[in-house]
């Protein structure tokens, strides 16, 4: 039984998968599990769908974690989010409203091959694990591989670089699977959130240019409230703003792709910390990080229910 699953520690891929099966089995009223495809190495790309089942039309929110393998706090947050959503459904009116009115798709580990590799071989692996036929270097940056200004500013065409954008857009089966799923669901999906580390930032489009997005007011307002919510928990400060000016210019990112495909609230979180531990965030900081991030996600989700 996984009833005593420890959310305050990092888990290898096989444990996360067992946990997903368990959540699906033990909460059939709120959770369903499905696979949207296979990774380069043939692993299933699992997604949990949270929400009260109904015959009526429901909007949706997409959350993904673990796009970059070494950012272990991401998958830890996705698991925390699912646990909290289920456990507080009957006690938290806000969560009840969210799960009654929305479906939330949660992909705890986007880059399954890379995550597995970071547990078994190289703790600091970032990319996917696809093999380049002409070079000895492996993998593609899954957050430079999307069909949105692909291979432009802030992406590398060198297969040995950590920001290699791949031989062509959506070359990575993981990216292609999520892009296909989101494209099919794009009329329902109101918000896209992708979880990364580290920098303590909440970013929104555009990444590939400095111009403001058309619905800047709504997106900025939601981000502002979200970072205030984060600060309210433990006083941790997050910077927020357009990714291009708050972080740096990048192209081929999932956030820009989601926004340009009609998802009005699109964000990328850079979770704790600001470099004291970096990618080696201790397990003791999983809980505070997840507690404060949970507040931000709920905040953005409530915004996504409103018209913009």
């Amino acid at each position: 039984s996984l009833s005593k699953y420890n959310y305050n520690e990092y888990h290898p891929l096989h444990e996360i998968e067992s946990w997903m099966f368990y959540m699906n089995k033990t909460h059939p009223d709120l959770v369903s599990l499905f696979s949207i495809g296979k990774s380069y190495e043939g692993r299933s790309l699992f997604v949990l769908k949270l929400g009260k089942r109904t015959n009526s039309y429901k909007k949706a929110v997409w959350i993904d974690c673990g796009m970059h393998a070494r950012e272990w706090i991401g998958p830890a947050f996705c698991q925390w989010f699912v646990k909290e959503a289920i456990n507080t459904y009957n006690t938290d009116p806000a969560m009840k409203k969210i799960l009654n009115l929305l479906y939330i798709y949660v992909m705890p580990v986007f880059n399954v091959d890379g995550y597995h590799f970071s547990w078994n071989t190289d703790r600091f692996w970032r990319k996917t694990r696809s093999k380049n036929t002409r070079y000895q270097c492996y993998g593609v940056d899954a957050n430079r591989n999307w069909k949105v200004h692909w291979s432009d500013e802030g992406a590398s065409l060198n297969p040995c670089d950590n920001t290699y954008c791949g031989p062509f857009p959506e070359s990575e089966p993981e990216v292609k699977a999520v892009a296909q799923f989101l494209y099919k669901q794009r009329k329902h999906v109101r918000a896209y959130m992708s979880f990364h580390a580290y920098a303590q930032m909440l970013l929104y489009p555009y990444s590939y240019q400095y111009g403001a997005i058309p619905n800047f007011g709504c997106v900025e307002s939601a981000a502002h409230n979200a970072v205030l919510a984060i600060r309210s928990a433990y006083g941790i400060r997050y910077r927020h703003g357009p990714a291009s000016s708050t972080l740096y210019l990048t192209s081929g990112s999932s956030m820009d792709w989601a926004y340009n495909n009609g998802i009005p609230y699109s964000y990328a979180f850079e979770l704790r910390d600001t470099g004291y531990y970096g990618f080696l965030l201790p397990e003791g900081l999983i809980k505070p990080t997840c507690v404060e991030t949970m507040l931000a996600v709920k905040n953005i989700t409530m915004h996504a229910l409103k018209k913009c």
Partner: protein
Amino acid sequence: HLYKNRYAGDKVIRVFPKTEEEAYELRNMYRQLQVDLWQPSSINHIEKDTVTDVHTSGNSSHVLLSYLIKEKVQHRILVNNVQTMLEAQQVSRPRRKRR
């Protein structure tokens, strides 16, 4: 040893290039040393006043630190031994330790 001891002696160093020349030299040095950049994600993003966190192997960290000290480039060691830190974090997991 975790990860077959591959991170023994590795360091994570935070560097603050204060001029364009320092940033230029750092970019060159990082390329030569083939470092693992933690922040920013790409060497090309390193500019004046960009905080850069770099994970280097034991040998490369000697070369990098010698350069930083000699050229008086502002820096700080964030992790003195990556392997030790990984193992210290592993020890704090009682369940896994028992396994």
